[in-house]
């Protein structure tokens, strides 16, 4: 029957209904406002992007005030001394207790099948009819505006995270992680004091670090930090009159920088990909003569920086809203940088495996 026909309503109707319910506004805004508000907001946002570099509190301040003026005829009383982001939050939460909406009693409408007597009493909400029920007030809480505001704020807020991580690298031609890897001398600088008489046996490269990440947009973030790396290898070598096993340990201090892209983000986990580079400085390069009765060790300083580039993907498991643990398998290429011989110089393309814990310090 035609009286049961259904037609899908546009989603903007619900948005308008929810905002009017939340604000307690009985009268619909003028039709022209429907177009004027988004049009003016778009112009303001575009002008801000073009003319104002970066985000500033004054831009947020003016946009929030303009929106307040356009969307609500009533003047919202927000103290001027509250910082701009808080003014936005206050605007979203401001909801004066509306004037009591007097409801008219809806009597039964007589239909062809219903014999109830009495006419239909149709009253506008703002009219006080002869028979009126007690006033119905909209709660002070403004859940719809707050949810919408939180979405807007979340999309623009810079989330800052602290990261602590550890990494192990592949040591067997850069593809597997074995207790001992093997390789012939590569492009690294040979020691001027210790002569290498055999191929090197590599230990697993190990790194530890701390970092910080900044959210650039809902999907992009950039991270930087400081990390410490320990490289080790052993070989048969000679130093002066000594010939025997030689152990070479190098320590690096580096600054990695990565760009992250989230392609899937839920409350439980996050999938992302990342790419970046690092510059590392060799803090020490020490050779230990293992079989030497005097346990002699020789340090040979290195100069310059070890540059590298890498990319990988990661998954973060969120333990709570602000804490997550992550795993980042990645490949990294170590450029020829005139650094002491190590697994990096012998096998510049390496598979690394990083794991860490991340704390969001301002994700409320």
């Amino acid at each position, binding site marked *: 029957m*035609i009286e049961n026909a259904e037609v899908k309503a546009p989603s903007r*109707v619900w948005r308008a209904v929810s905002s009017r*319910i939340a604000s307690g506004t009985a009268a619909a805004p003028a039709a022209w406002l429907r177009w004027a508000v988004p049009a003016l907001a778009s112009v303001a946002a575009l002008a801000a992007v073009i003319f104002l570099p970066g985000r500033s509190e004054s831009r947020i301040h003016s946009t929030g005030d303009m929106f307040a003026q356009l969307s609500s005829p009533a003047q919202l009383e927000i103290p001027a001394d509250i910082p701009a982001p808080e003014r936005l939050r206050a605007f979203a939460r401001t909801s004066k207790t509306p004037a009591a909406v007097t409801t008219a009693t809806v009597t039964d409408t*007589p239909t062809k099948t219903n014999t109830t007597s009495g006419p239909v009493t149709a009253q506008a909400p703002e009219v006080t009819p002869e028979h009126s*029920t007690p006033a119905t007030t909209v709660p002070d809480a403004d859940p719809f505006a707050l949810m919408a505001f939180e979405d807007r704020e979340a999309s623009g807020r810079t989330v800052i995270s602290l990261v602590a991580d550890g990494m192990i690298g592949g040591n067997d031609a850069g593809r597997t992680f074995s207790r001992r890897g093997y390789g012939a001398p590569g492009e690294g600088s040979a020691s001027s004091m210790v002569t290498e008489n055999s191929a090197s046996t590599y230990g697993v490269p190990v790194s530890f670090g701390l970092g910080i990440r900044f959210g650039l947009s809902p999907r992009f973030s950039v991270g930087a930090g400081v990390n410490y790396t320990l490289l080790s290898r052993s070989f048969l070598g000679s130093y002066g009159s000594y010939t025997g096993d030689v152990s070479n340990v190098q320590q690096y201090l580096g600054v990695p920088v990565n760009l992250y892209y989230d392609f899937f983000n839920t409350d439980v986990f996050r999938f992302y990909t990342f790419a970046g580079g690092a510059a590392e400085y060799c803090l020490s390069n020490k050779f230990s003569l293992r079989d030497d009765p005097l346990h002699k060790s020789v340090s040979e300083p290195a100069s310059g920086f070890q540059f590298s580039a890498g990319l990988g993907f990661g998954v973060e498991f969120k333990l709570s809203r602000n804490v997550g643990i992550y795993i980042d398998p990645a490949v990294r290429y170590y450029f020829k940088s005139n650094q002491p011989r190590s697994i990096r110089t012998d096998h510049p393309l390496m598979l690394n495996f990083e794991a860490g814990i991340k704390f969001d310090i301002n994700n409320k």
Partner: protein
Amino acid sequence: MQLFKSKEHLNTRESDWIQGAKEGDPRSQKAIYDMLSRKMFAICLRYMGDRESAEDVLQDGFVTLFSKLGSYLGEGSFEGWARKIFVNTALMSLRKKDVLKQSEDVDAAWSILSDEPTPVQNLGYNELLTYISELPAGFRTVFNMYVIEGYSHKEIAEELGISETTSRSQLLRARALLQSRIKKH
């Protein structure tokens, strides 16, 4: 295992939503909107004739519904109660636009009627809705109220502030116009 939700189960959920909406729970309000919006929008379209006006009436109707929800005590169908609100909201909107006061000569209108049966049964809901929405406002309102909502001419006259004669004539014109348009297509 119960494959289909029983009517009792649905009514229980509806009661929960109504109670939640009375308490201001946004999820309950959204659930009620989702439950009613399609049918109520069809009603608004039938009365208003164009989508923009129908959207405005739908919006006003839901705001009124939620503000009056406290007066719904569970007696009778909730959908029926909501329907009255939306019909009244549509009528108020039409009254504001002053499109309802049209008088017609009954004899002249009668001559337009055709005796041939209308192929309404071959039309889908959307098509019929379209034809109804294309009627002039006065014809459309009386047609909706008499044919679909079941008002009597006396009730229509009292509601719209017109005479019973005008109500009858507008209904005749509405039927004739509808028939001719359906026949054309």
